[in-house]
Protein backbone atom coordinates (compact mmCIF):
# COMPACT_ATOMS: atom_id res chain seq x y z
CA UNK A 1 0.00 0.00 0.00
CA UNK A 2 2.67 2.51 0.96
CA UNK A 3 4.80 1.61 -2.03
CA UNK A 4 1.87 2.18 -4.30
CA UNK A 5 1.01 5.40 -2.56
CA UNK A 6 4.53 6.73 -3.02
CA UNK A 7 4.77 5.61 -6.65
CA UNK A 8 1.45 7.12 -7.48
CA UNK A 9 2.37 10.26 -5.57
CA UNK A 10 5.64 10.65 -7.45
CA UNK A 11 3.67 10.41 -10.65
CA UNK A 12 1.33 13.11 -9.40
CA UNK A 13 4.14 15.67 -9.38
CA UNK A 14 4.90 15.82 -13.13
CA UNK A 15 1.16 15.80 -13.75
CA UNK A 16 0.66 18.87 -11.60
CA UNK A 17 3.74 20.47 -13.08
CA UNK A 18 2.53 20.02 -16.66
CA UNK A 19 -0.93 21.19 -15.77
CA UNK A 20 0.43 24.36 -14.22
CA UNK A 21 2.66 24.88 -17.28
CA UNK A 22 -0.28 24.56 -19.64
CA UNK A 23 -2.40 26.88 -17.57
CA UNK A 24 0.43 29.39 -17.35
CA UNK A 25 0.94 29.31 -21.12
CA UNK A 26 -2.77 29.78 -21.67
CA UNK A 27 -2.58 32.78 -19.38
CA UNK A 28 0.31 34.25 -21.33
CA UNK A 29 -1.42 33.88 -24.66
CA UNK A 30 -4.44 35.67 -23.36
CA UNK A 31 -4.60 39.36 -24.02
CA UNK A 32 -4.09 41.58 -20.99
CA UNK A 33 -1.95 41.19 -17.89
CA UNK A 34 -2.02 42.11 -14.21
CA UNK A 35 -2.17 45.80 -15.09
CA UNK A 36 -5.15 45.59 -17.42
CA UNK A 37 -8.10 47.43 -16.01
CA UNK A 38 -5.91 49.41 -13.62
CA UNK A 39 -4.24 51.61 -16.16
CA UNK A 40 -5.53 55.10 -16.47
CA UNK A 41 -5.12 56.09 -20.13
CA UNK A 42 -3.74 59.48 -19.05
CA UNK A 43 -0.68 57.96 -17.39
CA UNK A 44 2.51 58.42 -19.29
CA UNK A 45 4.18 55.34 -20.68
CA UNK A 46 7.26 55.68 -18.49
CA UNK A 47 5.24 55.19 -15.33
CA UNK A 48 3.55 52.18 -16.80
CA UNK A 49 6.94 50.81 -17.71
CA UNK A 50 8.27 51.18 -14.14
CA UNK A 51 5.17 49.46 -12.85
CA UNK A 52 5.70 46.65 -15.35
CA UNK A 53 9.25 46.23 -14.12
CA UNK A 54 8.12 46.33 -10.50
CA UNK A 55 5.54 43.61 -11.17
CA UNK A 56 8.08 41.58 -13.13
CA UNK A 57 6.10 41.60 -16.36
CA UNK A 58 9.23 42.15 -18.44
CA UNK A 59 11.10 39.18 -17.05
CA UNK A 60 11.71 36.10 -19.19
CA UNK A 61 8.84 33.62 -19.13
CA UNK A 62 10.45 31.04 -16.85
CA UNK A 63 11.08 33.69 -14.18
CA UNK A 64 7.48 34.79 -14.54
CA UNK A 65 6.35 31.20 -14.32
CA UNK A 66 8.12 30.58 -11.01
CA UNK A 67 6.92 33.92 -9.66
CA UNK A 68 3.39 33.00 -10.59
CA UNK A 69 3.75 29.52 -9.10
CA UNK A 70 5.30 30.94 -5.96
CA UNK A 71 2.46 33.40 -5.42
CA UNK A 72 -0.05 30.69 -6.11
CA UNK A 73 1.38 28.16 -3.68
CA UNK A 74 2.39 30.48 -0.85
CA UNK A 75 -0.47 32.97 -0.88
CA UNK A 76 -3.14 31.27 -2.96
CA UNK A 77 -3.06 34.39 -5.09
CA UNK A 78 -4.65 33.95 -8.51
CA UNK A 79 -4.72 37.61 -9.44
CA UNK A 80 -7.52 40.06 -9.93
CA UNK A 81 -10.60 39.78 -12.07
CA UNK A 82 -10.33 42.33 -14.90
CA UNK A 83 -14.03 42.69 -14.98
CA UNK A 84 -15.00 43.10 -11.33
CA UNK A 85 -11.72 44.32 -9.81
CA UNK A 86 -11.93 41.85 -6.96
CA UNK A 87 -9.61 38.97 -6.14
CA UNK A 88 -10.40 35.91 -8.25
CA UNK A 89 -10.53 33.71 -5.18
CA UNK A 90 -13.28 35.87 -3.74
CA UNK A 91 -15.27 35.78 -6.98
CA UNK A 92 -14.99 32.03 -7.18
CA UNK A 93 -15.98 31.23 -3.63
CA UNK A 94 -19.75 31.68 -3.81
CA UNK A 95 -19.93 29.99 -7.21
CA UNK A 96 -17.86 27.11 -5.93
CA UNK A 97 -20.36 26.34 -3.18
CA UNK A 98 -23.25 26.39 -5.64
CA UNK A 99 -21.40 23.92 -7.84
CA UNK A 100 -20.61 21.74 -4.84
CA UNK A 101 -24.31 21.57 -3.93
CA UNK A 102 -25.15 20.67 -7.50
CA UNK A 103 -22.42 18.04 -7.56
CA UNK A 104 -23.54 16.46 -4.30
CA UNK A 105 -27.19 16.22 -5.32
CA UNK A 106 -26.12 14.83 -8.69
CA UNK A 107 -24.02 12.12 -7.09
CA UNK A 108 -26.83 11.14 -4.72
CA UNK A 109 -29.32 10.93 -7.58
CA UNK A 110 -26.83 8.99 -9.70
CA UNK A 111 -26.49 6.31 -7.05
CA UNK A 112 -30.23 6.26 -6.35
CA UNK A 113 -30.85 5.54 -10.04
CA UNK A 114 -27.89 3.30 -10.74
CA UNK A 115 -27.83 0.91 -7.80
CA UNK A 116 -31.34 -0.57 -8.10
CA UNK A 117 -31.30 -0.60 -11.89
CA UNK A 118 -27.87 -2.18 -11.98
CA UNK A 119 -28.80 -4.89 -9.52
CA UNK A 120 -32.17 -5.63 -11.14
CA UNK A 121 -30.71 -5.88 -14.62
CA UNK A 122 -28.26 -8.46 -13.33
CA UNK A 123 -30.77 -10.27 -11.16
CA UNK A 124 -33.61 -10.52 -13.66
CA UNK A 125 -31.49 -11.54 -16.60
CA UNK A 126 -33.36 -12.34 -19.82
CA UNK A 127 -36.64 -10.88 -18.62
CA UNK A 128 -38.47 -7.76 -19.68
CA UNK A 129 -36.89 -5.88 -16.76
CA UNK A 130 -33.41 -6.39 -18.10
CA UNK A 131 -34.52 -5.58 -21.64
CA UNK A 132 -35.94 -2.21 -20.58
CA UNK A 133 -32.95 -1.33 -18.48
CA UNK A 134 -30.61 -2.18 -21.34
CA UNK A 135 -32.72 -0.04 -23.62
CA UNK A 136 -32.40 2.84 -21.20
CA UNK A 137 -28.62 2.47 -21.02
CA UNK A 138 -28.34 2.33 -24.81
CA UNK A 139 -30.30 5.55 -25.13
CA UNK A 140 -28.34 7.12 -22.28
CA UNK A 141 -25.03 6.32 -23.93
CA UNK A 142 -26.10 8.04 -27.14
CA UNK A 143 -27.78 11.05 -25.53
CA UNK A 144 -25.53 14.10 -25.25
CA UNK A 145 -25.95 15.74 -21.86
CA UNK A 146 -26.84 19.18 -23.22
CA UNK A 147 -29.65 17.77 -25.35
CA UNK A 148 -31.17 15.93 -22.42
CA UNK A 149 -30.78 19.10 -20.36
CA UNK A 150 -32.57 21.19 -22.98
CA UNK A 151 -35.37 18.67 -23.39
CA UNK A 152 -35.92 18.41 -19.64
CA UNK A 153 -35.89 22.17 -19.22
CA UNK A 154 -38.31 22.56 -22.12
CA UNK A 155 -40.68 19.91 -20.85
CA UNK A 156 -40.59 20.17 -17.05
CA UNK A 157 -39.46 23.76 -16.74
CA UNK A 158 -41.41 25.58 -19.42
CA UNK A 159 -44.26 23.38 -20.69
CA UNK A 160 -45.30 21.77 -17.42
CA UNK A 161 -43.91 24.48 -15.15
CA UNK A 162 -42.99 22.06 -12.39
CA UNK A 163 -39.53 23.48 -11.84
CA UNK A 164 -37.91 26.92 -11.96
CA UNK A 165 -36.08 27.59 -15.19
CA UNK A 166 -33.09 29.58 -13.94
CA UNK A 167 -31.10 30.63 -10.88
CA UNK A 168 -30.16 28.78 -7.72
CA UNK A 169 -32.72 30.09 -5.21
CA UNK A 170 -35.76 32.39 -5.03
CA UNK A 171 -34.64 35.92 -4.25
CA UNK A 172 -36.85 37.16 -1.43
CA UNK A 173 -36.41 34.31 0.99
CA UNK A 174 -34.75 34.56 4.36
CA UNK A 175 -31.35 32.88 4.25
CA UNK A 176 -31.29 29.79 6.40
CA UNK A 177 -35.05 29.34 6.65
CA UNK A 178 -36.70 26.10 5.69
CA UNK A 179 -38.33 27.65 2.62
CA UNK A 180 -34.88 28.83 1.54
CA UNK A 181 -33.45 25.32 1.51
CA UNK A 182 -36.55 23.92 -0.12
CA UNK A 183 -36.23 26.48 -2.87
CA UNK A 184 -32.58 25.61 -3.34
CA UNK A 185 -33.38 21.95 -3.80
CA UNK A 186 -36.24 22.82 -6.09
CA UNK A 187 -33.81 24.76 -8.29
CA UNK A 188 -31.17 22.06 -8.11
CA UNK A 189 -33.30 19.07 -8.86
CA UNK A 190 -33.76 19.33 -12.61
CA UNK A 191 -30.13 20.09 -13.52
CA UNK A 192 -28.90 17.41 -11.14
CA UNK A 193 -31.34 14.85 -12.52
CA UNK A 194 -30.21 15.61 -16.09
CA UNK A 195 -26.62 14.79 -15.25
CA UNK A 196 -27.56 11.83 -13.07
CA UNK A 197 -29.70 10.18 -15.75
CA UNK A 198 -26.66 10.07 -18.01
CA UNK A 199 -23.85 9.44 -15.56
CA UNK A 200 -25.74 6.53 -14.00
CA UNK A 201 -25.53 4.58 -17.26
CA UNK A 202 -21.92 3.44 -16.94
CA UNK A 203 -22.49 2.54 -13.29
CA UNK A 204 -25.47 0.41 -14.26
CA UNK A 205 -23.31 -1.41 -16.80
CA UNK A 206 -20.63 -2.05 -14.24
CA UNK A 207 -23.03 -3.22 -11.53
CA UNK A 208 -24.88 -5.48 -13.93
CA UNK A 209 -21.80 -7.43 -14.97
CA UNK A 210 -20.63 -7.50 -11.37
CA UNK A 211 -23.95 -8.95 -10.17
CA UNK A 212 -24.04 -11.51 -12.98
CA UNK A 213 -20.52 -12.61 -12.04
CA UNK A 214 -21.21 -12.80 -8.32
CA UNK A 215 -24.49 -14.65 -8.51
CA UNK A 216 -22.79 -17.68 -10.05
CA UNK A 217 -20.29 -17.95 -7.21
CA UNK A 218 -20.43 -21.02 -4.98
CA UNK A 219 -21.23 -19.06 -1.83
CA UNK A 220 -24.41 -17.77 -3.44
CA UNK A 221 -25.37 -21.30 -4.42
CA UNK A 222 -24.79 -22.30 -0.83
CA UNK A 223 -27.02 -19.54 0.44
CA UNK A 224 -29.74 -20.64 -2.00
CA UNK A 225 -29.47 -24.23 -0.89
CA UNK A 226 -29.69 -23.10 2.72
CA UNK A 227 -33.00 -21.52 1.82
CA UNK A 228 -32.10 -17.86 2.22
CA UNK A 229 -34.73 -15.66 0.61
CA UNK A 230 -33.87 -14.32 -2.85
CA UNK A 231 -34.16 -10.70 -1.79
CA UNK A 232 -31.92 -11.32 1.19
CA UNK A 233 -29.34 -13.00 -1.04
CA UNK A 234 -29.23 -9.99 -3.31
CA UNK A 235 -29.13 -7.48 -0.51
CA UNK A 236 -26.60 -9.15 1.68
CA UNK A 237 -24.40 -11.29 -0.52
CA UNK A 238 -24.48 -9.87 -4.01
CA UNK A 239 -24.93 -6.15 -3.61
CA UNK A 240 -22.39 -5.63 -0.86
CA UNK A 241 -19.26 -6.94 -2.59
CA UNK A 242 -20.34 -5.23 -5.81
CA UNK A 243 -20.88 -1.92 -4.09
CA UNK A 244 -17.42 -1.49 -2.67
CA UNK A 245 -15.56 -0.85 -5.93
CA UNK A 246 -18.24 1.65 -6.88
CA UNK A 247 -16.71 4.00 -4.37
CA UNK A 248 -13.68 4.17 -6.59
CA UNK A 249 -15.75 5.27 -9.55
CA UNK A 250 -15.95 8.49 -7.65
CA UNK A 251 -12.84 9.88 -9.31
CA UNK A 252 -14.26 9.23 -12.76
CA UNK A 253 -17.60 10.68 -11.80
CA UNK A 254 -15.84 13.82 -10.69
CA UNK A 255 -14.26 14.35 -14.09
CA UNK A 256 -17.58 13.82 -15.79
CA UNK A 257 -19.37 16.08 -13.36
CA UNK A 258 -16.99 18.91 -14.08
CA UNK A 259 -17.44 18.87 -17.84
CA UNK A 260 -21.14 18.28 -17.24
CA UNK A 261 -21.53 21.39 -15.12
CA UNK A 262 -20.26 23.59 -17.94
CA UNK A 263 -23.20 22.57 -20.13
CA UNK A 264 -25.84 22.09 -17.50
CA UNK A 265 -25.16 25.28 -15.55
CA UNK A 266 -25.26 27.26 -18.77
CA UNK A 267 -28.54 25.70 -19.86
CA UNK A 268 -30.23 26.17 -16.49
CA UNK A 269 -28.58 29.57 -15.85
CA UNK A 270 -27.36 28.14 -12.57
CA UNK A 271 -24.73 30.37 -10.93
CA UNK A 272 -21.92 27.85 -10.48
CA UNK A 273 -18.35 27.38 -11.63
CA UNK A 274 -19.27 26.09 -15.08
CA UNK A 275 -21.40 29.08 -15.95
CA UNK A 276 -18.82 31.41 -14.41
CA UNK A 277 -16.29 29.89 -16.78
CA UNK A 278 -18.44 30.57 -19.84
CA UNK A 279 -19.33 34.08 -18.64
CA UNK A 280 -15.68 34.93 -18.01
CA UNK A 281 -14.71 33.74 -21.47
CA UNK A 282 -17.45 35.84 -23.00
CA UNK A 283 -16.36 38.90 -21.03
CA UNK A 284 -12.68 38.15 -21.76
CA UNK A 285 -12.02 38.04 -18.02
CA UNK A 286 -9.02 35.81 -18.44
CA UNK A 287 -7.58 35.69 -14.93
CA UNK A 288 -10.82 34.06 -13.84
CA UNK A 289 -10.69 31.64 -16.77
CA UNK A 290 -7.16 30.59 -15.87
CA UNK A 291 -8.10 30.10 -12.24
CA UNK A 292 -11.06 27.89 -13.13
CA UNK A 293 -9.09 25.74 -15.58
CA UNK A 294 -6.43 25.27 -12.91
CA UNK A 295 -8.97 24.39 -10.26
CA UNK A 296 -10.83 21.89 -12.45
CA UNK A 297 -7.57 20.35 -13.63
CA UNK A 298 -6.42 19.94 -10.04
CA UNK A 299 -9.72 18.35 -9.07
CA UNK A 300 -9.55 15.74 -11.83
CA UNK A 301 -5.91 14.88 -11.19
CA UNK A 302 -6.42 14.50 -7.46
CA UNK A 303 -9.69 12.67 -8.05
CA UNK A 304 -8.02 10.06 -10.23
CA UNK A 305 -5.20 9.74 -7.71
CA UNK A 306 -7.62 9.08 -4.87
CA UNK A 307 -9.74 6.64 -6.83
CA UNK A 308 -6.67 4.63 -7.86
CA UNK A 309 -5.66 4.34 -4.22
CA UNK A 310 -9.16 3.48 -3.13
CA UNK A 311 -9.49 0.88 -5.84
CA UNK A 312 -6.30 -0.78 -4.77
CA UNK A 313 -7.17 -0.64 -1.09
CA UNK A 314 -10.56 -2.21 -1.67
CA UNK A 315 -9.63 -4.74 -4.29
CA UNK A 316 -5.98 -5.84 -4.16
CA UNK A 317 -6.48 -8.04 -7.22
CA UNK A 318 -6.40 -4.90 -9.33
CA UNK A 319 -2.94 -4.02 -10.51
CA UNK A 320 -2.23 -0.34 -10.33
CA UNK A 321 0.93 0.65 -12.08
Amino acid at each position, binding site marked *: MWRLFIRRFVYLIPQLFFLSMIVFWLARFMPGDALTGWIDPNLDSEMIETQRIRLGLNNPWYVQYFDWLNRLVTEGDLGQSFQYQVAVTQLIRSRLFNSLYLGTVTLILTYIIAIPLGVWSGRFQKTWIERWIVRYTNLGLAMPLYILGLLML*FLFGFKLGWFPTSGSVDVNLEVGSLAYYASRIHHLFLPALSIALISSVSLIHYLRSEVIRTKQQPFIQTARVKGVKQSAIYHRHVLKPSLIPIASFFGLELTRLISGTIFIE*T*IYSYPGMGSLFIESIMQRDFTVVVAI*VLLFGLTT*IIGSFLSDLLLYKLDPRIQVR
Partner: protein
Amino acid sequence: MRGRGEKKTNFQMLFSNNRGAYVSLWFLLFISGVSLIGAFFIDTSQLMRVDLTRITEPPSAQYWLGTDHGGRDVFNQLVLGTRHSLAVAFLVTILSGVIGGVFGLLSGYMGGRIDYVMMRIIDFFQTLPFIMIVIVFVALVPTYNVLSFSIVMTVFLWMPIARVVRAQVLKEKEMMYIQASKTLGTPAFKIMTKQLLPNVMSVWIVSMTLNLALNMGLESGLSFLGFGFPPDAPSLGTLLSYAQSPSNLEYYWWLWLPAALLIFFIILSIRQLGEMIHLHFNEKKGGE
Protein backbone atom coordinates in the same frame (compact mmCIF):
# COMPACT_ATOMS: atom_id res chain seq x y z
CA MET B 1 -30.02 -12.66 -53.41
CA ARG B 2 -32.09 -15.16 -55.35
CA GLY B 3 -29.29 -16.63 -57.45
CA ARG B 4 -27.54 -18.10 -54.47
CA GLY B 5 -30.53 -20.04 -53.28
CA GLU B 6 -30.77 -20.48 -49.54
CA LYS B 7 -27.40 -19.05 -48.74
CA LYS B 8 -27.48 -15.51 -47.45
CA THR B 9 -24.98 -12.97 -48.63
CA ASN B 10 -22.44 -11.54 -46.26
CA PHE B 11 -24.40 -8.35 -46.05
CA GLN B 12 -27.60 -10.12 -45.06
CA MET B 13 -25.75 -12.26 -42.55
CA LEU B 14 -24.41 -9.14 -40.95
CA PHE B 15 -27.87 -7.80 -40.28
CA SER B 16 -29.83 -11.03 -39.96
CA ASN B 17 -30.48 -10.72 -36.24
CA ASN B 18 -29.92 -7.06 -35.69
CA ARG B 19 -32.84 -5.00 -36.83
CA GLY B 20 -31.66 -1.92 -34.95
CA ALA B 21 -28.37 -1.82 -36.82
CA TYR B 22 -30.16 -2.34 -40.13
CA VAL B 23 -32.48 0.60 -39.51
CA SER B 24 -29.51 2.66 -38.31
CA LEU B 25 -27.55 1.98 -41.47
CA TRP B 26 -30.37 3.13 -43.73
CA PHE B 27 -31.06 6.11 -41.53
CA LEU B 28 -27.44 7.23 -41.72
CA LEU B 29 -27.28 6.67 -45.46
CA PHE B 30 -30.47 8.63 -45.90
CA ILE B 31 -29.30 11.52 -43.73
CA SER B 32 -25.90 11.76 -45.38
CA GLY B 33 -27.49 11.44 -48.82
CA VAL B 34 -29.95 14.22 -48.18
CA SER B 35 -27.35 16.50 -46.64
CA LEU B 36 -24.82 15.86 -49.39
CA ILE B 37 -27.16 16.15 -52.35
CA GLY B 38 -29.41 18.72 -50.74
CA ALA B 39 -26.48 20.99 -50.09
CA PHE B 40 -26.05 21.42 -53.85
CA PHE B 41 -29.52 22.84 -54.17
CA ILE B 42 -29.13 25.28 -51.32
CA ASP B 43 -27.58 28.59 -52.15
CA THR B 44 -25.64 29.46 -49.00
CA SER B 45 -25.62 33.21 -49.51
CA GLN B 46 -29.33 33.11 -50.31
CA LEU B 47 -29.96 31.02 -47.22
CA MET B 48 -28.11 33.28 -44.82
CA ARG B 49 -29.73 36.46 -46.16
CA VAL B 50 -31.90 38.23 -43.65
CA ASP B 51 -35.51 38.74 -44.69
CA LEU B 52 -37.49 40.63 -42.09
CA THR B 53 -40.85 40.04 -43.76
CA ARG B 54 -40.99 36.45 -42.60
CA ILE B 55 -39.31 36.18 -39.20
CA THR B 56 -39.97 33.28 -36.80
CA GLU B 57 -42.72 31.74 -38.86
CA PRO B 58 -43.90 28.39 -37.56
CA PRO B 59 -43.53 25.32 -39.78
CA SER B 60 -45.66 25.47 -42.91
CA ALA B 61 -45.83 23.90 -46.34
CA GLN B 62 -43.46 26.51 -47.69
CA TYR B 63 -40.95 26.46 -44.82
CA TRP B 64 -41.01 22.90 -43.54
CA LEU B 65 -39.43 23.78 -40.26
CA GLY B 66 -40.33 27.46 -40.11
CA THR B 67 -37.95 30.38 -40.14
CA ASP B 68 -35.60 31.96 -37.60
CA HIS B 69 -35.21 35.53 -36.34
CA GLY B 70 -33.63 36.60 -39.58
CA GLY B 71 -36.34 35.00 -41.69
CA ARG B 72 -33.98 32.24 -42.78
CA ASP B 73 -35.34 28.82 -43.59
CA VAL B 74 -34.62 26.42 -40.72
CA PHE B 75 -34.95 23.23 -42.76
CA ASN B 76 -32.29 24.34 -45.23
CA GLN B 77 -30.01 25.32 -42.38
CA LEU B 78 -30.58 21.90 -40.90
CA VAL B 79 -29.51 20.21 -44.14
CA LEU B 80 -26.41 22.36 -44.40
CA GLY B 81 -25.65 21.96 -40.70
CA THR B 82 -25.85 18.19 -40.94
CA ARG B 83 -23.33 18.22 -43.74
CA HIS B 84 -20.88 20.37 -41.80
CA SER B 85 -21.31 18.36 -38.60
CA LEU B 86 -20.81 15.04 -40.37
CA ALA B 87 -17.80 16.35 -42.28
CA VAL B 88 -16.02 17.49 -39.14
CA ALA B 89 -16.97 14.36 -37.26
CA PHE B 90 -15.41 12.21 -39.98
CA LEU B 91 -12.34 14.39 -40.24
CA VAL B 92 -11.71 14.23 -36.50
CA THR B 93 -12.29 10.48 -36.46
CA ILE B 94 -9.86 9.85 -39.27
CA LEU B 95 -7.20 12.08 -37.72
CA SER B 96 -7.53 10.59 -34.26
CA GLY B 97 -7.83 7.10 -35.74
CA VAL B 98 -4.48 7.46 -37.49
CA ILE B 99 -2.71 9.08 -34.53
CA GLY B 100 -4.25 6.74 -31.97
CA GLY B 101 -3.61 3.69 -34.15
CA VAL B 102 0.06 4.46 -34.73
CA PHE B 103 0.59 5.42 -31.10
CA GLY B 104 -1.09 2.28 -29.80
CA LEU B 105 0.75 0.04 -32.25
CA LEU B 106 4.14 1.48 -31.34
CA SER B 107 3.47 1.56 -27.61
CA GLY B 108 2.19 -2.00 -27.53
CA TYR B 109 4.88 -3.44 -29.76
CA MET B 110 7.83 -1.65 -28.17
CA GLY B 111 6.77 -2.51 -24.63
CA GLY B 112 8.95 -1.86 -21.61
CA ARG B 113 9.98 1.66 -20.70
CA ILE B 114 8.86 3.23 -23.96
CA ASP B 115 5.40 1.75 -23.46
CA TYR B 116 5.35 3.02 -19.87
CA VAL B 117 6.23 6.59 -20.87
CA MET B 118 3.76 6.57 -23.76
CA MET B 119 0.97 5.36 -21.51
CA ARG B 120 1.73 8.05 -18.93
CA ILE B 121 1.41 10.63 -21.72
CA ILE B 122 -2.04 9.25 -22.47
CA ASP B 123 -2.98 9.29 -18.79
CA PHE B 124 -1.96 12.89 -18.57
CA PHE B 125 -3.99 13.94 -21.59
CA GLN B 126 -7.01 12.19 -20.18
CA THR B 127 -6.92 14.06 -16.89
CA LEU B 128 -6.92 17.47 -18.58
CA PRO B 129 -10.20 19.37 -18.44
CA PHE B 130 -10.21 19.30 -22.20
CA ILE B 131 -13.57 20.88 -22.97
CA MET B 132 -12.36 23.97 -21.15
CA ILE B 133 -9.07 24.04 -22.98
CA VAL B 134 -10.80 23.75 -26.35
CA ILE B 135 -13.14 26.58 -25.39
CA VAL B 136 -10.22 28.75 -24.30
CA PHE B 137 -8.46 27.99 -27.56
CA VAL B 138 -11.45 28.93 -29.69
CA ALA B 139 -11.90 32.13 -27.71
CA LEU B 140 -8.25 33.09 -28.08
CA VAL B 141 -7.46 32.27 -31.67
CA PRO B 142 -9.21 34.87 -33.79
CA THR B 143 -8.86 33.12 -37.13
CA TYR B 144 -9.86 29.59 -36.31
CA ASN B 145 -11.57 27.64 -39.06
CA VAL B 146 -13.03 24.20 -39.57
CA LEU B 147 -9.63 22.60 -40.04
CA SER B 148 -7.94 24.08 -36.98
CA PHE B 149 -11.02 23.31 -34.91
CA SER B 150 -10.84 19.69 -36.00
CA ILE B 151 -7.16 19.51 -35.15
CA VAL B 152 -7.77 20.86 -31.65
CA MET B 153 -10.55 18.32 -31.13
CA THR B 154 -8.21 15.57 -32.30
CA VAL B 155 -5.51 16.54 -29.80
CA PHE B 156 -7.86 15.49 -27.01
CA LEU B 157 -9.68 12.59 -28.63
CA TRP B 158 -7.09 10.13 -29.91
CA MET B 159 -6.24 8.56 -26.54
CA PRO B 160 -9.07 6.04 -26.17
CA ILE B 161 -8.24 4.62 -29.62
CA ALA B 162 -4.56 4.31 -28.72
CA ARG B 163 -5.47 2.49 -25.51
CA VAL B 164 -7.69 -0.04 -27.25
CA VAL B 165 -5.21 -0.70 -30.05
CA ARG B 166 -2.36 -1.10 -27.57
CA ALA B 167 -4.31 -3.61 -25.49
CA GLN B 168 -5.01 -5.69 -28.58
CA VAL B 169 -1.38 -5.49 -29.73
CA LEU B 170 -0.25 -6.75 -26.32
CA LYS B 171 -2.48 -9.79 -26.78
CA GLU B 172 -1.42 -10.47 -30.37
CA LYS B 173 2.25 -9.99 -29.57
CA GLU B 174 2.27 -13.14 -27.45
CA MET B 175 0.95 -15.27 -30.30
CA MET B 176 3.19 -17.79 -31.99
CA TYR B 177 3.17 -16.16 -35.41
CA ILE B 178 4.65 -12.93 -34.13
CA GLN B 179 7.19 -14.77 -32.02
CA ALA B 180 8.16 -16.82 -35.06
CA SER B 181 8.51 -13.74 -37.22
CA LYS B 182 10.71 -12.13 -34.63
CA THR B 183 12.94 -15.19 -34.43
CA LEU B 184 13.22 -15.24 -38.20
CA GLY B 185 14.49 -11.69 -38.05
CA THR B 186 11.61 -9.89 -39.74
CA PRO B 187 12.10 -6.14 -39.37
CA ALA B 188 9.96 -4.55 -36.67
CA PHE B 189 8.28 -2.22 -39.13
CA LYS B 190 7.20 -5.12 -41.30
CA ILE B 191 5.84 -7.06 -38.33
CA MET B 192 3.82 -4.06 -37.26
CA THR B 193 2.36 -3.20 -40.64
CA LYS B 194 2.00 -6.59 -42.27
CA GLN B 195 1.17 -8.81 -39.31
CA LEU B 196 -0.05 -6.84 -36.34
CA LEU B 197 -2.05 -4.22 -38.21
CA PRO B 198 -4.48 -6.60 -39.94
CA ASN B 199 -5.08 -8.33 -36.62
CA VAL B 200 -5.83 -5.22 -34.62
CA MET B 201 -7.96 -3.80 -37.44
CA SER B 202 -11.21 -5.00 -35.89
CA VAL B 203 -10.80 -3.29 -32.51
CA TRP B 204 -9.41 -0.27 -34.26
CA ILE B 205 -12.48 0.12 -36.45
CA VAL B 206 -14.83 -0.42 -33.53
CA SER B 207 -13.07 2.19 -31.40
CA MET B 208 -13.19 4.59 -34.35
CA THR B 209 -16.97 4.24 -34.61
CA LEU B 210 -17.23 5.05 -30.92
CA ASN B 211 -14.96 8.02 -31.50
CA LEU B 212 -17.21 9.16 -34.35
CA ALA B 213 -20.27 9.07 -32.11
CA LEU B 214 -18.41 10.85 -29.32
CA ASN B 215 -16.96 13.68 -31.35
CA MET B 216 -20.23 14.23 -33.19
CA GLY B 217 -21.75 14.98 -29.79
CA LEU B 218 -18.82 17.09 -28.64
CA GLU B 219 -18.73 19.25 -31.74
CA SER B 220 -22.43 20.00 -31.44
CA GLY B 221 -22.01 20.70 -27.74
CA LEU B 222 -19.19 23.15 -28.32
CA SER B 223 -21.08 24.84 -31.15
CA PHE B 224 -24.09 24.98 -28.86
CA LEU B 225 -22.06 26.94 -26.30
CA GLY B 226 -20.82 29.16 -29.11
CA PHE B 227 -17.29 27.78 -29.25
CA GLY B 228 -17.46 25.41 -32.15
CA PHE B 229 -17.96 26.24 -35.74
CA PRO B 230 -17.29 29.67 -37.15
CA PRO B 231 -20.64 31.45 -37.56
CA ASP B 232 -20.52 31.42 -41.36
CA ALA B 233 -20.64 27.62 -41.37
CA PRO B 234 -23.73 26.57 -39.44
CA SER B 235 -23.58 23.14 -37.86
CA LEU B 236 -26.27 21.25 -36.00
CA GLY B 237 -24.88 22.69 -32.78
CA THR B 238 -25.26 26.22 -34.13
CA LEU B 239 -28.97 25.61 -34.64
CA LEU B 240 -29.15 24.11 -31.18
CA SER B 241 -27.64 27.26 -29.71
CA TYR B 242 -30.87 29.10 -30.47
CA ALA B 243 -32.12 27.32 -27.37
CA GLN B 244 -29.67 29.31 -25.25
CA SER B 245 -32.26 32.04 -25.10
CA PRO B 246 -35.21 31.10 -22.89
CA SER B 247 -37.83 32.64 -25.20
CA ASN B 248 -36.58 30.59 -28.15
CA LEU B 249 -36.55 27.50 -25.98
CA GLU B 250 -40.09 28.06 -24.82
CA TYR B 251 -41.91 29.49 -27.84
CA TYR B 252 -39.91 28.77 -30.98
CA TRP B 253 -39.33 25.06 -30.61
CA TRP B 254 -38.87 24.53 -34.35
CA LEU B 255 -35.57 26.40 -34.21
CA TRP B 256 -33.76 23.93 -31.98
CA LEU B 257 -35.82 20.79 -31.43
CA PRO B 258 -35.25 19.24 -34.89
CA ALA B 259 -31.50 19.74 -34.59
CA ALA B 260 -31.52 18.27 -31.07
CA LEU B 261 -33.40 15.16 -32.15
CA LEU B 262 -31.30 14.77 -35.29
CA ILE B 263 -28.05 14.87 -33.30
CA PHE B 264 -29.43 12.28 -30.89
CA PHE B 265 -30.58 9.90 -33.62
CA ILE B 266 -27.36 10.23 -35.60
CA ILE B 267 -25.28 9.38 -32.53
CA LEU B 268 -27.62 6.53 -31.63
CA SER B 269 -27.36 5.06 -35.14
CA ILE B 270 -23.58 5.32 -35.23
CA ARG B 271 -23.39 3.53 -31.88
CA GLN B 272 -25.78 0.81 -33.05
CA LEU B 273 -23.66 0.23 -36.13
CA GLY B 274 -20.52 0.16 -34.01
CA GLU B 275 -22.09 -2.40 -31.71
CA MET B 276 -23.03 -4.52 -34.72
CA ILE B 277 -19.51 -4.36 -36.15
CA HIS B 278 -18.16 -5.32 -32.74
CA LEU B 279 -20.44 -8.36 -32.50
CA HIS B 280 -19.62 -9.31 -36.06
CA PHE B 281 -15.88 -9.36 -35.42
CA ASN B 282 -16.37 -11.30 -32.20
CA GLU B 283 -18.42 -13.94 -33.97
CA LYS B 284 -15.85 -14.25 -36.69
CA LYS B 285 -13.15 -14.74 -34.10
CA GLY B 286 -15.17 -17.30 -32.20
CA GLY B 287 -16.01 -19.17 -35.39
CA GLU B 288 -12.45 -19.71 -36.48
